[in-house]
């Protein structure tokens, strides 16, 4: 009874510390959105390159896999040594983690695009760029978008770790709550993060309908 009462106190905590909470929430969103956007800007061109230059496909996939295998905390520690503490190294670390799902999905999406469609498009006289933008990327878009969705939800969670290297975000509250063994503060960080992850999933699921071409809506995830 007492514990539950204490647990619900996290709402009271947020009310009483509205300014700090809002600041951390915005930081958290910024970390997530910027790192996913950066990851898209890095991963999509690399995936296109890999789909064009067969020789690069394997090394790039390995590189991405390494980025995915190293524990997040280790990446944070590494960027800490390289860029110091704060928002920027956190952003770099999160971006590194977000690149692989987007890279892999884009690459697989392009490679698994229906060969007969590509063959017909080439046979009709599409130039390289036309083939990419008119056919390959639209055909890959359901899988590509699923990759962005995965990366985003994952980044919302991982962004809590940014607090370890002074990157801010809702992780601050979790760390503080842990250090002080103060449940309301801990939950004031943890519960919004969980809700944020669900919200991101739903939002992107809705966005999917707008982004994926109509003829492909039933395919993919």
């Amino acid at each position, binding site marked *: 009874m007492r514990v539950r009462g204490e647990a619900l106190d996290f709402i009271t905590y947020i009310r009483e510390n509205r300014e700090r909470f809002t600041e951390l929430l915005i930081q958290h969103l910024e970390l997530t959105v910027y790192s996913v956007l950066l990851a898209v800007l890095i991963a999509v061109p690399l995936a296109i390159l890999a789909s064009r230059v067969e020789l690069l496909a394997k090394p790039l996939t390995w590189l991405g896999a390494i980025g995915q295998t190293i524990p997040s905390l280790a990446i944070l520690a590494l960027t800490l040594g390289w860029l110091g503490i704060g928002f920027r190294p956190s952003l770099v670390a999160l971006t590194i983690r977000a690149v692989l799902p987007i890279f892999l999905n884009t690459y697989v999406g392009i490679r698994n695009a*229906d060969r*007969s*469609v590509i*063959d*017909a*498009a*080439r*046979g*009709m*006289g*599409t*130039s390289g760029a*036309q083939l990419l933008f*008119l*056919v390959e990327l*639209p*055909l890959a878009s359901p899988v590509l978008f699923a990759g962005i969705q995965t990366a985003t939800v994952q980044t919302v969670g991982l962004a809590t770790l940014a607090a370890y290297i002074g990157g801010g975000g809702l992780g601050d509250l979790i760390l503080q709550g842990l250090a002080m063994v103060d449940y309301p503060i801990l939950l004031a960080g943890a519960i919004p993060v969980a809700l944020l992850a669900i919200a991101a999933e739903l939002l992107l699921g809705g966005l999917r309908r707008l982004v994926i*071409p*109509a*003829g*492909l809506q*039933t*395919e993919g995830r």
Partner: protein
Amino acid sequence: MIRLEHVSKVFTSRGQVVKAVDDVSLEVGAGELVVLIGPSGSGKTTTMRMINRLEVPTSGRIIVDGRDVQEMDVVALRRRIGYVIQQGGLFPHFTVADNVAVVPRLLGWPRAKRRQRAYELLELVGLPPDQFADRYPRQLSGGQQQRVGVARALAADPPIVLMDEPFGAVDPITRKQLQRELRRIQSEVRKTIVFVTHDIGEAFLLADRIVLMSEGRVVQDATPADLLRRPADAFVTEFIGEDRGLRALQYTRLEELAGPAPAGQSPNGVVLPGALSVLEAAREVGKFENATGDGFWVSDDAGRPVGYLTYLQFVALLGETIAPEDTSGKEPAHAVSA
């Protein structure tokens, strides 16, 4: 229009050298429908794909409209050559109308003109535009998708169309229907068509000329009637199959058999159109129970009498057509040009 000069294509896979196409020379005239046929691995598809440079010949030259294709801009070349493939290859994210208008779009036609052209072509291939234009490919049956594929190939009015087993993946009834439609469309648009198939019945139905290939080489290059009556070797005979006699009756036309019209005589009695197959002619002849005279006249497309056959000659030719190997050495009666 299209000329292949000693074209070869060698693939190397896992250290093994495979001659997919071996010294093929052939010519396709303007407005002609030439069928490349052969068992799988005979090199027919590779031969076709070298024309629009989806494959590069190892040696030899391919001339389209007097120019070596290797020296032409590949994108421009392909936009002048319609292309239909077995799996359809429609863009799933494009509506039917947008699919038909892909090449016009690549060529930079204005939107309204593209749409109008797409509607015309959907009409031509028997898909009412107001019903089909805004659907997506996945909402169509296989046969309907192939019709869209044909419409798409014709959209920019290319002089040449390449068709790679375009009806191979649809059910037999739909296939028959599509074949008849293609004949009708071809009689309207008169394209230079290279058509790849492994279905001999389809070849006889559609071809002006059949090029039979085996192991990368041309075994015989002949009109359907010649292929039936004068197969080059045992492989051809075997490929055509056991119903060769029946096919010969179906595809040999009366005007190819008729002797010259007797000079100075005006036609009286029975006149049959030269475009009839021997089989159809035999049926017709049977209807004239009380015909006088020893034979019948053969007329050209305009109805002019151009040849004459006695009933006795006709019966003999029927026999020759069904079993040509018995007549080897003898020249068949020559065609009377219309």
